[in-house]
């Protein structure tokens, strides 16, 4: 079963980290990723740029393009993982490995309904 782990955190807090703190965090997370990879559990991993770089497209016949999210004071989606785990229980344990390395924020586990890493399949 594929699960996504969505990483939410206050962007204001995350961008307040110094480069050294951030690098150290990435090293810790990569150690967990290595472990997951060796167990065959790790899919794509993405870290997103700050929400200030976001562009929104409102669906409809005439799609509207809107810049960024409007003033948000809580947590933002800053990155995500796709993992392959036999059960929710196992996915939770996996997410906990990541959560222990992160200073704050929330990880959301969402089972993946459709996953196609190569885009359109024949």
């Amino acid at each position, binding site marked *: 079963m594929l699960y996504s782990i969505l990483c939410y955190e*206050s*962007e*204001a*807090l995350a*961008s*307040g*980290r*110094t480069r050294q703190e951030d690098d150290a965090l990435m090293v810790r997370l990569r150690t967990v990723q290595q472990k997951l990879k060796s167990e065959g559990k790790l899919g794509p991993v993405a870290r997103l*740029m*700050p*929400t*200030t*770089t*976001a*562009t929104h497209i409102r669906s409809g016949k005439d799609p509207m*393009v*809107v*810049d*960024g*999210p*409007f*003033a*948000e*004071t*809580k947590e933002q989606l800053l990155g995500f993982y796709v993992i392959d785990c036999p059960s929710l229980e196992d996915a939770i344990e996996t997410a906990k490995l990541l959560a222990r390395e992160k*200073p*704050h924020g929330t990880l959301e586990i969402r089972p993946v309904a459709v996953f196609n890493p190569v885009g359109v399949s024949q």
Partner: protein
Amino acid sequence: MTDMAWIDATLTAARPQVLGALLRYFRVLDAAEDAFQEACLRALKNWPVKGPPRDPAAWLIFVGRNFALDEVRRRSKQTELPADEEIVTDETEDTQTELAERLDAAHYRDDILRLLFVCCHPDLPATQQVALALRIVSGLTVKEIARAFLVSESAMEQRITRAKARITAADVPFDTPGAPERAPRLSAVATMLYLLFNEGYSASGGNAHVRVPLCEEAIRLSRLLLRLFPSEPEIMGLSALLLIQHARASARLDAENNIVLLEDQDRSLWDRELIAEGLALVEKALRHRRPGPYQLQAAIAAVHSQAAKAADTDWAEIDRLYQILESLQPSPVVTLNRAVAVAKLRGPAEALAMIEPLAAKLGGYFYFFGLKGALLTQLNRTDEARTAFDRAISLANTAAEAAHIRLHLDRLQKESESERSA
């Protein structure tokens, strides 16, 4: 988790919003600062025991506001209590913070903008604006600011006190601004953030490492401003400009603290992550087709950042961007910068002809004589080049700038010696 580092980071991140809301309530900087201080003290006492609140900023605003209201009540026991229809006193803390949150969420953007705007009040000289913003918005201590500006603590204390007094005397608007009032405020704040960044970047005196935090703080505040006003292309431009310039920070000085010019920098030292974010913002801004000075400067920085080596630089594009900038915001400094691109494209003679008319306006400007000397050197007009470099040294703002020009002079000296011996 409620470790002290988390609390510390949270208080720093919440500071602009909380202080901005308290300033809306009390309209006096000192009162708002006292209330914020008290709220922080209570957070340090409460959060480790009770766990962090769901919304730290709302908690701090609520606690700070109540503290200040209690102060008012205590001082005026004889007079009637202030009307207090917004705060219900007899409820659980959670309901109360939720109420406060609802009240403040609507003001979030304008609170922070006002707080920043107060710091760059037109009555204040630029150095006071930046110092005040660092003290009030960023929460740096007077000691830290004094260190960054290379002045004594007492001198900085005085500067900040004077700035606050001026603001109290001036008429700061506390009403929520409409769209027409917002634009000039936003632009004043953008200018102040740019000054703050430059204070760290160009190091007008002093060594670099105490100043990097100023650049980082300017970037943090520009991102904050952009989160508040996500569809302002000039704020995107400002953010992008600061990010791309800061990306080169570790390549700008060599091990001996000598300046390394853009074309000689080791580009592998450039921070690709910051550049990528800057490029994303430039691209987003340009879609708006409302060019402005920050967007153009960011676009120029972007062109430089995309060249794998100096020789790959697209000087024609840089020249074109400077021309648009010149037409939007005519300034001898912009023309001077464009001359660098022109020298690369069409040779030093044309560039020199471009900058010579600027002599009257830029007679006290280090870079003018630096560029003039470099162009004259390329044209083999050695004596004139030496005169220009001498003038540049006398105008250098830092030891590193002077040392850089001295390198040029030494080279000229060596060349003329080898010519004589030949």
